[in-house]
Structures are given as structure tokens and as C-alpha cells.
């Protein structure tokens, strides 16, 4: 079968079971776009900025438990993807990015729209390729998908010179991928698993700490069983929310800088921590020296570099979270585990004395109240994406995630502008789900142009803007640590978001009264199409608890 490079590309993407890609055309990829127009197998969603294409692909991957794909042109198209790639890299999300490149004969000549995108993205991709030889195209694409989705997942970039896309060859399907230097270790060491069971049996104050790795390896079920069988309370990183049901009595809430009092205190006092799929980011650990000072730590991770990187652990387990947890559950059969009653009572006391709290008065809307109402109205079933800042933290604290793959946020990079394109990607993957972007007034303006994408592609997303007229999270730091010098964080000069929504062809609703929050949400969520709901919230509300940077996580500022 004779195929051009562009045809091979589309065929190989389809063979991965992917039906939708996100992209933006240009000279270097014009042949690919021509080929796309002449087929019906692969749907292409035209974004309005290449950063949006990668965030959308990222969220598509997370919502769909598959790989996301972005396609962009050379030069500025490629450089515009870098933030999206870096975000996917920090969060270990399987995304494959195809970038156009100038023809091979021009590479290195500073040609028009030539950039060394392979060089630029080397430190923020799991791996990347420049395909100079059409005969290697199919196998490189296959390898790219394999690398992106196996082991510790991550973004892989493939740079495609224009002439390679135009050349026709006799297409042969590449066989299975086999890389001599890449064999991720899924199977944990059995001896170590036995040790885990012993440690659990001996522990008096155990805690499970779940991270994004649990969601990536689809191990929520096993994690939940482990907690229930051995009566172990569970906390999670921002990336781990949804790995354990938020409505379960063993749930502690999120850990870290804006973690709940009981989660942070539990880590400060536990004698055993079972950490699964976490990398001990500084936003979670606070002062490393004072992190879990009384605990033996078990760490399960597929990436050996995550182990002993920030935190010394006593029982490292290299392997896939799901495989490891299954193994542990098997070894636990017919064994007796402590009730941990005293420990669970202590945790309950922490919860009772110091819960998450805010006071909703009659006049001004509290942002937390909006999220709580959103949770009630959606019964916790919506896929939530977020922007970055206070809006993101309140979403994490007040929306209780009962299922994995329902909370999609830029965790490691914290890229403002993530939420809207991510909502579009998630909705493209799960058209039957309600998808809500919880946004800040600052962040939403970073990729607001993607409203047009949603409207054009009839991908209905709901956007809840918590408008505090500030870059609120930065303002909060300025309030607490910089003598209230609100340098460059006042966002009162803003567009009229309702009119802006209408200008794009969406609908917009504004709400500034607490007693109308519920009805506004209800109207917005139940209206067809893409809807912007703007809530004018208390300008100087802050996120609490808060652990000042560098302090122990048990040293929290409370409301």
C-alpha cells in the first residue's frame, strides 16, 4: 500500500484507538491538514491557541484513560505548546505532540519558522524525536505512543519535517515496539510486599497517602479495599484527589500547604505512611525535616527516581501501583488487622475541633459556598477542571471527589489558563458527562479564546468564574507575608464576562447575591450550550488552612 507521510501519521494515530485530536494548522503541516480534510476517521478540533491544544489533549487523556494528541505547525506553533507540554510532564500525563518542521534540507539553516523544538522540549518531555527518514516514521510514531503511555507516563514530542509528510512510500505496519534500553518494571518485589503487610499489622497510627500515580495506574479500587480492610485513613495530594472516595469516613481530605487540619496532623503523628504514586512535592511536604517525623514510610512508585529523591523511605517498592496493591491485598487475605479505634477517634477529634470552615453571611458571596453548592447540584458527578490559584484550592477542598479521573488540574506546573481548554478536552473525551471549569477571573483570561473552540465544535462546557477581582492567591501571599502591598494583583480592570461570553456566542450569567448562587448555578448547569457563570465573591477571602512555605505541615495558619 502506497501512503504519504501525512497518511501514515493519521493511520498510526487511529490505530492507537484515538478518535479526536486537537490542533492548529500552518505551512509546515499543511499537507497533514489536507489529508485530514479528506478522511472521516479522525476528528480534529481546531483550537484558538496551540497551548490550548496541548491542555485539551492532556485532559482528554485523563478523562478517557488514554493518550491525548496535539498537532501544531513549526516555529511559533511549536513554541506555543511548551507550557502545555511542561504541565503534562509535571503531572505525568500521556500526550503525544506532533509538530511540523521545515523540510529536512533546510534544517539548521535558520529557515523561516524553524525552531529546534526537540532541543527546546528535551527537558520537559519524556522523550522526543525528529523524523528525518520516512521509512522510520511509522515505527517512531508507535514508539512515541508506547513511551507516552507506559511506565511513568509523560508527553512525547515528534517533530515532522514537511517533506517527510509529502513523501510517498510502500507502507509496512511496524511490529511490536521493542526498545533495548526501556523496560519499565511493573512487578514489585514480593519480599517487600510481605514487609508491607507486617508493617501494617504492627502499626498503631497508619495513614495512606495517595497521589496521581494511583489514578494513572487505575488502582483506586485496590487502594480503597486496602484502606477499608485495615482501617487506614487516607489522604491525597492534589493530583491524587478522587483516588479514594471523598464521602468515605476514612477520608482525611487533601494534604499539604492547603491541606485539611486533620490530614496534616495525621501525617505529623502517624507511625506508618503508605505512600502510593506520589513524589513528595514541596507543596505537600512543607519542611522536609519535619515531615512525618514518627513514621516508617512505604513508598510505591513505578519510577525509581521518585524514591529517596526528597524523602528517605524505609520500605521502597518499585512497581506499578495497581500490581503492588493487588499483591498486598492478596497477602492480607485471612489476616487480622487492628481496628485503629484510638487513632481514628483522634482524627475525628481533629476534624470536629478544626474542620474546613467559612462564614457565609447574607451580603457577600463566599467562593467556598459556590463550590459547595456546585457539589450539591452535580451530586459530585461532574468532571471538574480548574484554573490555578485560590479557585483551584477551593475546588480541591470543597468539591468531594468520589471517583478517579474526575478532577483535572495543572498540579505540578500550576499553569494558569489550563482549565478552559482542559474542560474542552475532557468533554470531547466524555460527551455524556457534565464538565465544569472552576476558574479565577485572572486565569480565565489566559486562554479565554478557547470559548470559540467550544462554541464552534459544539463541545458544551460550563465555566464557573469565582471573580474576586484579584490574582487572589498572590494577593493572599502579599496580605500575609508582604505587608498587604498588593503589587500588580488588582484585577478590577476586567472585561464584562457576561458580554464577553455573548460575544463568543456563549451564554453568560452573573450573580452577586448569596441567595441567588444556587439558582444561578442551577440555571447555568441546566442550560444547553457553553455557559459562563460569573460569581462576584468576597474580594479578600483567603484559602485556609495554610502552611507558610518552609514550615512543618503541622504548623498551619487557620481562619
Amino acid at each position: 500500500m502506497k501512503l504519504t507521510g501525512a497518511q501514515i501519521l493519521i493511520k498510526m494515530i487511529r490505530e492507537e484507538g484515538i478518535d479526536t485530536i486537537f490542533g492548529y494548522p500552518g505551512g509546515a503541516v499543511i499537507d497533514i491538514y489536507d489529508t485530514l480534510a479528506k478522511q472521516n476517521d479522525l476528528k480534529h478540533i481546531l483550537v484558538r491557541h496551540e497551548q490550548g491544544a496541548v491542555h485539551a489533549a492532556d485532559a482528554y487523556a485523563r478523562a478517557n484513560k488514554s493518550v491525548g494528541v496535539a498537532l501544531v505547525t513549526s516555529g511559533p506553533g511549536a513554541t506555543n505548546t511548551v507550557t502545555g507540554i511542561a504541565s503534562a510532564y509535571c503531572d505525568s500525563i500521556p500526550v503525544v505532540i506532533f509538530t511540523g518542521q521545515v523540510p529536512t534540507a533546510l534544517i539548521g539553516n535558520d529557515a523561516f519558522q524553524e525552531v529546534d523544538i526537540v532541543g527546546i522540549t528535551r527537558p520537559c518531555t519524556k522523550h522526543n524525536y525528529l523524523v528525518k527518514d520516512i521509512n522510520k516514521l511509522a515505527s517512531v510514531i508507535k514508539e512515541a505512543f508506547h513511551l507516552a503511555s507506559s511506565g511513568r507516563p509523560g508527553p512525547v514530542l515528534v517533530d515532522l519535517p514537511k517533506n517527510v509528510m509529502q513523501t510517498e512510500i510502500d507502507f509496512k505496519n511496524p511490529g511490536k515496539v521493542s526498545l533495548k534500553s526501556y523496560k519499565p518494571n511493573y512487578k514489585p518485589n514480593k519480599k517487600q510486599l510481605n514487609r508491607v503487610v507486617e508493617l501494617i499489622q504492627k502499626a498503631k497510627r497508619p495513614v495512606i497517602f495517595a497521589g496521581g500515580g494511583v489514578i494513572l495506574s487505575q488502582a483506586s479500587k485496590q487502594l480503597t479495599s486496602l484502606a477499608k480492610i485495615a482501617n487506614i485513613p487516607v489522604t491525597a495530594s492534589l493530583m491524587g484527589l478522587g483516588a479514594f472516595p471523598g464521602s468515605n469516613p476514612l477520608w482525611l481530605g487533601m494534604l499539604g500547604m492547603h491541606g485539611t487540619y486533620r490530614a496534616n496532623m495525621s501525617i505529623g503523628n502517624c507511625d506508618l505512611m503508605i505512600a502510593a504514586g506520589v513524589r513528595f512535592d514541596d507543596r505537600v511536604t512543607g519542611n522536609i525535616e519535619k515531615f512525618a517525623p514518627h513514621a516508617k514510610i512505604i513508598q510505591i512508585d513505578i519510577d525509581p527516581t521518585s524514591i529517596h529523591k526528597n524523602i528517605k523511605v524505609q520500605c521502597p517498592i518499585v512497581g506499578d501501583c495497581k500490581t503492588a496493591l493487588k499483591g498486598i491485598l492478596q497477602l492480607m487475605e485471612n489476616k487480622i488487622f487492628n481496628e485503629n479505634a484510638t487513632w481514628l477517634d483522634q482524627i475525628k477529634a481533629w476534624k470536629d475541633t478544626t474542620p474546613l470552615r467559612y462564614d457565609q453571611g447574607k451580603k457577600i458571596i463566599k467562593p467556598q459556598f459556590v463550590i459547595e453548592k456546585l457539589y450539591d447540584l452535580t451530586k459530585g458527578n461532574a468532571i471538574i477542571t480548574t484554573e490555578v490559584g485560590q479557585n483551584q484550592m477551593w475546588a480541591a477542598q470543597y468539591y468531594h471527589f468520589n471517583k478517579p479521573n474526575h478532577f483535572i488540574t495543572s498540579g505540578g506546573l500550576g499553569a494558569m489558563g489550563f482549565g478552559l481548554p482542559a474542560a474542552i478536552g475532557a468533554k470531547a473525551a466524555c460527551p455524556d458527562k457534565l464538565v465544569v471549569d472552576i476558574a479565577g477571573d485572572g486565569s480565565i483570561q489566559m486562554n479565554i479564546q478557547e470559548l470559540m473552540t467550544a462554541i464552534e465544535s459544539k463541545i458544551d462546557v460550563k465555566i464557573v468564574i469565582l471573580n474576586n477581582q484579584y490574582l487572589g492567591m498572590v494577593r493572599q501571599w502579599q496580605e500575609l507575608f508582604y505587608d498587604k502591598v498588593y503589587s500588580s494583583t488588582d484585577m478590577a480592570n476586567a472585561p464584562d464576562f457576561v458580554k464577553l461570553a455573548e460575544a463568543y456566542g456563549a451564554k453568560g450569567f452573573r450573580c452577586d447575591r448569596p441567595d441567588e448562587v444556587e439558582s444561578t448555578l442551577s440555571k447555568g448547569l441546566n442550560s444547553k450550550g457553553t455557559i459562563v457563570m460569573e460569581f462576584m465573591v468576597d474580594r479578600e477571602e483567603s484559602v485556609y488552612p495554610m502552611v507558610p512555605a518552609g514550615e512543618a505541615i503541622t504548623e498551619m495558619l487557620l481562619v
Partner: protein
Amino acid sequence: MKTNRYLLSILVDDEPGVLSRIAGLFSSRAFNIDSLSVANTTEPEISRITMVTKCEPHIIEQIKKQLNKLINVITVNDLTDKKYVQRQLALIKVNAQPEKRAEILRIVDIFRCKIVDVGLFHYTIEMSGNSDKHDAIISLLTPMGIIEIASTGTIALARENGR
């Protein structure tokens, strides 16, 4: 904490960009490279990198794991605590005034080096050996006036068992 000298022998795919991936890893994670040498092996698609790095013991573990994580790295062999042979090659151009020539030749002889270029007022000496020998000859020649030195990084191979 105390830093040690580590000697790594790394097999990598012989592809463009591999060296930059390794150098990038070291610079972005603030690891330091003391010396580096890259050359082909008998297998056409594989190169060997010999690297010397000085760091704390827990850092070398991260370095090895991070190197292994690179897709183009095939194996990382830490020779530090193994039996190995190592060599460094140096070309040393030294000031050779007539009254010093005899002494320089004596040093060259003791260290089993070679004179590879001679001029009216200089010798160029070829030295091969481990890094101690390298340092020793340099300290002896320094008083004569070293004009220039070019030297390679360390290269090393593990000894075969049964010796």
C-alpha cells in the same frame, strides 16, 4: 557531607542529541561532571561514555537512576567499587631551556612517557596513565614552566573476572 569520586561507564544509543540529553540532565539537576569522554564501541549503534563525577553518596544514586531513565541510555555501570583499569591521556608542552633538558628527560623516563615533539625551547610530552600519575607529572613539570596542556577525560573498563 563528604563527597566522593565516582566513575561511571555508560552505554548509549549512538544518535544525535544523546550527549545533550545527558549534559542537560546534569545541568538541570545541578549535578556536576568532572570529566567526560565519548567514543564508539565495536557495535555500530552504541557509544560508550565514561564519566567522572564528584558528589555525595545519596546524589550518585539519583544520578544513576536519572541516567537510566533516559530512553537512549542502555546501561549504567558504576565502576567505582569494582576492579577496573583507567587511563587518561595528556599532551604537555613544557618549556625546555638547554640547562633543564636533562632533568625533563629523566622525569619523562621515570613516568614512562614519550617526547612527541621537540623544538629549540620546548618539549611536548605524551603521558598516559591514571589521574594520580597525571597529577604527579604535572606537579613535577610545573617548575620548568608548562606552556600548554591538552588532556582527555578518564576512560575506563571493568576488569574481567578470574584475573
